[in-house]
């Protein structure tokens, strides 16, 4: 079967300076609400009421969408880092217990009377 040709839009179809539509304004509003719940370091410096074109809207949408993903990624990474620290504390405690045990054993050994070695001929 012969493939059906699909015409491409002309170059003039692209217009990032097109005035922002009501739909895009609504989308910007939704993402602005989401942005307000992000930690400060993830927030944009965009005043959304100043967004007038599709290009400006797209930049803001990109920034907030990526910030949400990044915030989640950072939280996931922090979750993984926390677990080894807890293991280190447990290990430190175990090592401390072992040291205390060795010390007790060593002290007890010193208190026991020395054995003589008559066969070797050494003086007692």
């Amino acid at each position: 079967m012969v493939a059906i040709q699909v015409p491409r839009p002309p170059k003039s179809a692209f217009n990032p300076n097109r005035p922002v539509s009501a739909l895009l304004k609504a989308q910007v509003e939704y993402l602005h609400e989401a942005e307000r719940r992000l930690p400060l370091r993830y927030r944009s410096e965009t005043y959304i009421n100043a967004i007038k074109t599709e290009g400006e809207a797209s930049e803001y949408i990109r920034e907030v969408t990526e910030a949400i993903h990044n915030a989640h990624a950072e939280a996931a990474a922090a979750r993984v880092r926390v677990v080894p620290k807890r293991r280190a504390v447990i290990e430190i405690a175990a090592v401390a217990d072992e040291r205390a045990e060795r010390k007790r054993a060593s002290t007890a050994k010193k208190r026991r009377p020395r054995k003589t070695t008559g066969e070797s001929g050494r003086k007692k």
Partner: protein
Amino acid sequence: MPPGLDKLQHIVVLMMENRSFDHMLGSLKAVNPNIDGVTPNLSNPDTNGSPVPAQALAEFQAQLQPDPDHHFPAVDLQIFGGDTSPNRKPNMQGFVKSYFNQQRDLNHSQKIMYYFAQKDLPVLTTLALEFAVFNRWFASIPGPTICNRAFAHYGTSFGRVDMNLIYINEPFKSIYDRLIGATPKHTSKLYYYDTASSTMEITNLLEHQPELFGTFPQFLDDCAKGNLPDYAFIEPNFNDHDTDSGEEVANDQHPDHNVQAGELFMAKIYNAIKTSPLWPNTALLIVYDEHGGIYDHVVPPACKPDQFTASANDTGTGMPFAFDRLGVRVPAILVSPWIPKGTVVDRVFDHASIPATVTNFFLGDYSPRSPREINADVFIEPNAGPVDAARNLLSLSTMRTDCPDFDV
């Protein structure tokens, strides 16, 4: 079990923007009389009372400016022709009057009646003629984008008829949450075009479950590698923007974005699925969220009310709305190599049919769901239990080898 249903593992939905059935597919009445498209007698009165016929004069861009009003009060005028009496009947005679209100230009208002010639939409019209086209798929409510898309994700708009933020409270979960929370777990993904376009509708899910989201390049990659989720929802590019790899033209077909860009987008999605190892196991639904204020001749039917009501204040018409009437008709096509060529479906559907179908197919019995979703028809029969042959669209006993290809 019919083999098409038996093999079905993936359902993909693409939702485009703001074009009516007659506007996009009305020309096909002349090709297939079973398609309920445009006939010579269709018209709307202008503000002088003169009839304005529907004509195949639609253009790809720069014609429908300003953007035709598609908010609740305007759509009420379009459907009821300006009649606000208690026992009024819908007549689909208010489109020209509604568009006139925006610019007070008699000649310009007539363009709301224009539709595309078949040759101008090679992708959409080919898919409609080759697979299954729905004569009676309606927007879920006679209103704007956000509420209608909510029905596709949740089976309800939670009582909203406007574009304000939807604060999602339980008890109805999104179709994505239902699938990933099921036992055994199913997979679902929402593919937005890129981060500069993002998700239009469900920022609440983006905030809490960003792993549910992917990009369009990821969709293409997932198709190629046979990694599609059980359920995938695709959002088009909603804005013109620059990227590191060049200019990205909006392809959602929302006026005044270029319609050809949307055709190209649909062709890429179809090609990706058709060349995927998952082609025998996938069904693709292409549907539009609402009519965009553009003419259609079919009266939206009444439907089972939702459990929510929009107040007279919220509707802006002075009358409350019980979600008991559907919105204007939109293009809807189901693609699968198991569907006979030239299938035309006359049953009534709306966007609540999407979560209804996906839930029934993958999860079977599930609650809670909105009354609208419970009563919505499904476009794919559940694959458990006996299958009603009269309803099953994936009815072929052998897979087609004559499906079209698009050169993009």
